[in-house]
């Protein structure tokens, strides 16, 4: 019997529809693979085996009822997926990779998750993340790091490293991630999978534990752009619970494909090819761009002059917002509470003891940036530069349809490579931060390997709310290439 775990989302849905296998078969296969690989990978913080099997059984019953004439069949019925542990799923733990939420059970479900549940998915568990999504390697998880399925001496990237590794190792066909400064795209790149970071406002943030509220987005990691699109289709759209969600119509992300990229204008920003980046990364990305050109696209070098400000701007705005967003974790209503002589002691002991060092670093940074006397020089100034960065993108999209660039300057780092040097780690984010600051969508997907056999990723960016063009372009590329079909031996 073929290994159901290796099928694409489309094949899984098709196989269940044709009665070749059931959701229970599929879910059991995923759970078995998780059980086998988790000791090496540690992609999950919580596995809901019983719940998943029950949900799969219910999905199968619903399909049976539909065959008997029931008239509704949810589009993703029976599809197993994983959810990053910063999104609320009622009844499941939600730790955000932090000790401060140890034992917290979500009392409600995040809107994008609920929409997928309404579309029929089966949730197998919650994936590992850097604490409160702050990090680029999952080394900042309080519950231990996730390992890269391509080479377990390397990080999977972060903060959605658990989701990326779970998809790369074929434990699940798709997993939800979140992207505040690259946390979907960078781990997708490090793990050789495809990941969509939507436009700000395209997907509701309700139920996503906020890190940088003006930057946060909820996306999908899957094996291909098409698989990601099939799932993303059912998450997007306005939500009455999120005032910043857009009322723009959600188009079809899986519409039929053109044969080539004829007429597509691709801009390649020169600021994204910098001294010191890994040569293999530049080579693979340039080869992929050349292949797109061969598929009919017009390629031109462009300039996004404010790119170099992305790191300082992001590391003022995101921590500033985080310093307020994380104030609620005070030990008063949920999570562990440390004791103290007085209220201030309780706060100090709880927050000091339960937050990890990276979270504390960013809270301190943000608190400082917002302080009276420093606000104008830091937070205020950062907001102004952010506006200029947005204009960079507005101008670029007057002359090109998509921007193609590397996702990160390197392939997956070794464990510990930057843990003693936060600044070097922050600089890893230089290519992913601008999309969040500008609010534009980005799609990362694999374009080859480095000499050590680690995946190289490329990202495409488009105008706000033009995710459809990103999916389409990547799907045409993936129809002609097989990088996205490669899988790590670890999981093979």
């Amino acid at each position, binding site marked *: 019997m073929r290994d159901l775990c290796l099928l694409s989302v489309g094949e899984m849905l098709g196989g269940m529809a044709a009665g070749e296998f059931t959701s229970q078969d599929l879910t059991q296969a995923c759970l078995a693979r998780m059980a086998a690989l988790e000791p090496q990978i540690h992609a999950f913080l919580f596995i809901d085996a019983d719940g998943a099997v029950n949900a799969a059984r219910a999905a199968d019953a619903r399909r049976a009822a539909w065959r008997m004439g029931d008239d509704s069949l949810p589009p993703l019925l029976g599809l197993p997926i994983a959810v990053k542990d910063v*999104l*609320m799923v009622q009844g499941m733990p*939600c730790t*955000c990779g932090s000790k401060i*939420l140890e034992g*917290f059970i979500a*009392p*409600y479900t*995040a809107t994008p998750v609920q929409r997928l549940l309404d579309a029929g998915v089966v949730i197998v568990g919650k994936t590992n993340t850097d604490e409160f999504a702050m990090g680029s390697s999952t080394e900042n998880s309080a519950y231990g790091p996730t390992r890269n399925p391509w080479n377990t001496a390397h990080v999977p990237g972060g903060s959605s490293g658990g989701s990326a590794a779970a998809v790369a190792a074929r434990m699940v066909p798709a997993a939800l991630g979140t992207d505040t400064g690259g946390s979907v795209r960078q781990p997708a790149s490090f793990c050789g999978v495809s990941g969509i970071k939507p436009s700000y406002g395209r997907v509701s*943030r*309700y*139920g*996503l*534990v*906020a890190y940088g*509220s*003006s930057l946060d987005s909820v996306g999908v990691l899957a094996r291909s752009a098409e698989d990601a699109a099939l799932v993303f289709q059912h998450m997007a759209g306005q939500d*009455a*619970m*999120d*005032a*910043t969600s857009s009322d723009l119509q959600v188009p079809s992300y899986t519409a039929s494909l053109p044969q080539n990229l004829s007429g597509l204008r691709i801009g390649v920003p020169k600021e994204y090819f910098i001294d010191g980046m890994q040569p293999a990364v530049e080579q693979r990305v340039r080869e992929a761009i050349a292949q797109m050109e061969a598929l009919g696209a017009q390629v031109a070098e462009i300039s996004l002059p404010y790119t170099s400000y992305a790191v300082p701007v992001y590391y003022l705005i995101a921590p*500033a*917002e985080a*310093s*307020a967003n*994380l*104030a*609620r*974790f*005070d030990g*008063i*209503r*949920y999570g562990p509470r440390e004791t103290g002589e007085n*209220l201030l002691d309780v*706060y100090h002991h709880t927050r000091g003891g339960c937050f990890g060092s990276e979270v504390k670093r960013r809270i301190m940074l943000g*608190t400082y940036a*917002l*302080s*009276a006397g420093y*606000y104008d020089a830091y*937070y205020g100034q950062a907001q102004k530069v952010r506006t200029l960065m947005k204009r960079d993108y507005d101008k670029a999209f007057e002359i090109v349809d998509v921007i193609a660039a590397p996702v990160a300057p390197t392939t997956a780092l070794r464990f510990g490579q930057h843990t003693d040097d936060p600044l070097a780690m922050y600089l890893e984010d230089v290519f992913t931060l601008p999309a969040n600051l500008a609010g534009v969508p980005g799609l990362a997907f694999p374009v080859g390997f480095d000499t050590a056999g680690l995946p190289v990723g490329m990202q495409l960016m488009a105008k706000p709310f033009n995710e459809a063009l990103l999916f389409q372009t990547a799907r045409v590329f993936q129809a002609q290439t097989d990088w996205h079909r490669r899988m790590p031996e670890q999981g093979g």
Partner: protein
Amino acid sequence: MTEGIEKYEVIIGLETHIQLNTNTKIFCSCKADSWDDEPNTNICPVCSGLPGVLPVLNQAVVEKAVLLSHAMDADIPPVSFFDRKNYFYPDLPKGYQITQYDLSVGKGGGIDIPLEDGRVRHVRIHKLHVEEDAGKTRNERNRRLIDFNRCGVPLIEMVTEPDLRSPEEAAQYVIRLRQLVRWLGISEGDMEKGHLRADANVSIRPVGADYLNPKTEIKNLNTIDGLRTAVKAEVERQIAEMEAGGKIEQWTLSWDEQKGELKKMRSKETEADYRYFREPDLLPVVMDDVWRESILLDYPELPLERRARFMETYQLPVYDADVLTAERPLSDYFEAAVKAYGGEPKKISNWVMNDVMRMLNEQSLQPGELKLTPAYLAEIQSLLDARTINGTTAKKVMELVMERGQSPRRIVEAEGLGAVSDEGAIRAICERVVAANPAEVENYKNKPTLMGWFVGQVMRESRGKADAKTAQEILTQLLG
């Protein structure tokens, strides 16, 4: 009287929090009013600040703030913003309060407060914005109990410039503010329920000086009397301190309503840094012309305007005008009756201030619920004017209208309550009364106040129907 008081001018500014009477809270769909509810029963993930939640603005809150801004003659800018005010406290579940910092719904403005001596105090508004309330903390022995019901209840914070000059002026400001918010229908204004809370900033300076001395802030002023008493006590304390050669320090005080005492909470520390920044989870509030006009479509005449008009147009005394503009429904009732009547408004005023208000109180009714409609009240006065009934009968008719909801004229006819104004009939009764009471007739010669007794006897004989004025005229003749 405090020694030295005449040498000082009192400077007061007030910061008020007005609880709005929206159905739901400001950022979620929980019920806003929890007065009768058990602790922590009107809460949801949003207002109790669970991880992952987002605020969604209740438009009605903005609309009520626009009404108040308009009433205060404040500017209403086309765009305003929400901001986060960061501080840690157990009853503030998000660790920040969503409020408006620099660009709020209303800007500037002021109100003219009438004073008892007929002068008017113009009070400028320093700040007017909307925000969410925090929860309530109660200390019980060594435990701290928190009720989150009040979290997310919508408030307007309104701060005056230091324009008030006495404890009484401060009290009058709050009285007028309370009247205004009830009139506009934006708050129940019930101070006992905390719908209107005030903090007072108090300082003194030598008469004629144009600088401001250090001020103290009195928190927790939840009644008009408390405000008046607390501010007066603080003024006296400051004067005594200055007279003794001391200095006023920037304290924060709290008023213990039960004990009637000011307590020092803290000395001025370094000012708290709330690290305000724009709330990224909410969009800017765009107040376009269409929305503003729809809010102000039924904008009412304000109580102080109506008070002035009642004095001017209806020639009412200040007292009557105040009473009849205290609440909008009663005021509307009065004016409807005046219009239906067409005669002297003071006569209607007397009925409303005495009998109508008594009935409202006794039966806990709103003016709109009275069976005695403004038109019926006007009719009763018209019947009196025509001497179809007398004063005594009028009250009886009024009671019957309240019972039956029928027109006064119909009741008078049905019950045969028409006054006996036939002079011959009244004269016959008068003669009978005089003949039957020779001793009183004799006494009357030295004691003219006995006339009332005689009139009373005539009324009794006529079972209340005789016209009292006619009876008195005839008795005067008979008793010589």
